[in-house]
């Protein structure tokens, strides 16, 4: 499964970004290959429709689940139709490293 985690900076000690579409980076983690890749969010400064553009981009990377602390109001329907799962982390001080540890301990 491929996870996209919103990140404030491009390293694993960075916190999860509180915005989804306007997050600075996305940490793309594949739990099969255990590979982590940080991608800069080029849509974060566009004036409108950042959400749908980001979803289209993440969908093209074949992302299965998106992890963030918040999702914008327009995003939910789009993600539902793309069959991409949403996970809301309650604590925005959670680091990318911690989230990846949780995923790695996942019972399949």
């Amino acid at each position: 499964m491929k996870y996209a985690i919103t990140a404030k900076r491009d390293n694993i000690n960075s916190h999860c970004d509180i915005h989804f579409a306007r997050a600075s980076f996305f940490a793309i983690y594949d739990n099969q290959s255990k590979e982590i890749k940080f991608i800069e969010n080029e849509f974060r400064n566009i004036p409108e429709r950042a959400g749908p553009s980001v979803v289209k981009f993440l969908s093209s990377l074949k992302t299965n689940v998106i992890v963030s602390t918040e999702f914008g109001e327009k995003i939910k329907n789009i993600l539902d139709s793309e069959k991409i799962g949403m996970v809301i982390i309650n604590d925005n001080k959670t680091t990318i490293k911690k989230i990846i540890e949780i995923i790695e301990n996942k019972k399949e």
Partner: protein
Amino acid sequence: MARPKNLRKIENPPQIKGYQQVGGKNTQDAVIINLEEYESIKLCDHLSLTQEEAAIKMGVSRPTLTRVYSTARKKVAEAFVLGKNIVFEGGKVYFDSDWYKCGNCNSLFNNYMHLSKPMCSLCGSLSITPIN
């Protein structure tokens, strides 16, 4: 007999279960705010939508939204003035897809694959509670 209430649509469930007052005496007293009331405050006050727009989002008529919103504000005022806790619970609501809270990693997630036995998308735990 009164007509049963229509279901109200909620976009995201609240991230917390409620609020606890600080420094008061009767710490057990709580005001229960329904999820539809929580959503009306979120749409009208936090996202600054008009009541008309909020009503469309929740799939109810504008007068119904006004009623729900006014009860919500009354309850918040009651909690503030009388020093009560606030609990988010219940209400005739539905979500776009089923949402659950994981008892293991404490995250909220949706059942996007529409599995009959959903598990946490993050940690794979089965100790989950539905949010409705």
